[in-house]
């Protein structure tokens, strides 16, 4: 497990992408799938910066990665106002307009997305990617690791 806390500066997104790719490859995902996973997490973090923090760069957010035998779990925490889940939807792809694709990418590449309603201080989003039988999973974290 790794936990990284950063300030909400967009220039730090590449660090998080590198971490996600590292764990994706450790888990046996292909280069392409690792890229997609990094894109999904990048979009989720970008949504926090844009929509929860309204572009503020002095707030903080945290990424936690749990590498389990059958899945990768990514926990994103922020300390902003509560997200209204009912307002989060990917836009229809037949609309050609700027914006709205981030959520679509998250839903496309992740197998599960859920908010922890018990997280009192802000938002805690869990994103899960299940590994295929070929994926070996990580051997550096026990299966008893807390998954959030």
């Amino acid at each position, binding site marked *: 497990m790794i936990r990284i806390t950063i300030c909400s*500066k*967009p*220039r730090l*997104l*590449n660090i998080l*992408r590198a971490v996600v790719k590292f764990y994706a490859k450790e888990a046996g995902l292909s280069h*392409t799938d690792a*890229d997609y996973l990094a*894109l999904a997490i*990048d*979009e989720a973090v*970008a949504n926090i*910066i*844009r929509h929860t923090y309204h572009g503020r760069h002095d707030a903080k957010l945290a990424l936690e990665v749990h590498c389990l035998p059958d899945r990768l779990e990514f926990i994103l925490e922020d300390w902003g106002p509560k997200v209204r889940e009912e307002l989060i939807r990917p836009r229809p*792809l*037949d609309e*050609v*307009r*700027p*914006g*709205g*694709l*981030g959520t*679509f*990418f998250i839903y*496309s590449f992740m197998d599960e997305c859920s908010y922890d309603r018990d997280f009192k201080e802000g938002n805690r989003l869990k994103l899960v990617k299940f590994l295929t039988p070929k994926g070996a999973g990580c051997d550096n974290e026990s299966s008893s690791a807390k998954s959030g």
Partner: protein
Amino acid sequence: MKVQVRNLDKISILDSSGDVDLYSSPRLREALLAQIKADGPSVLVNMSGVTYIDSSGIATLVEGLQLSRQTKTRFGLFGLRPNARSVLELARLHKVFTIFATEEEAVEKIGSIAPFEGL
């Protein structure tokens, strides 16, 4: 990410390189919209050096496309790496943009397409 503009036979070419994400896409947006507004007949984005593109980068390209419709500027992309192309395909935007494989092809053909082709 870097963006450099050069002109070739009345075509503005934006050479983009590096990661296009929430941090860097405003630079691409500024350069791209400026070139389209500059009243030239054709604008091409060289994507061969783009190593990563997220939804903000794609939104920038869509914005460029929409502005090019208003200004009747021919607008195209070339040199997309497989990862950038697959992201565009997933978003079903690969048929919306005019995409060329190489700069040679783009320079040769951009003048012959209709400004709104692809939409």
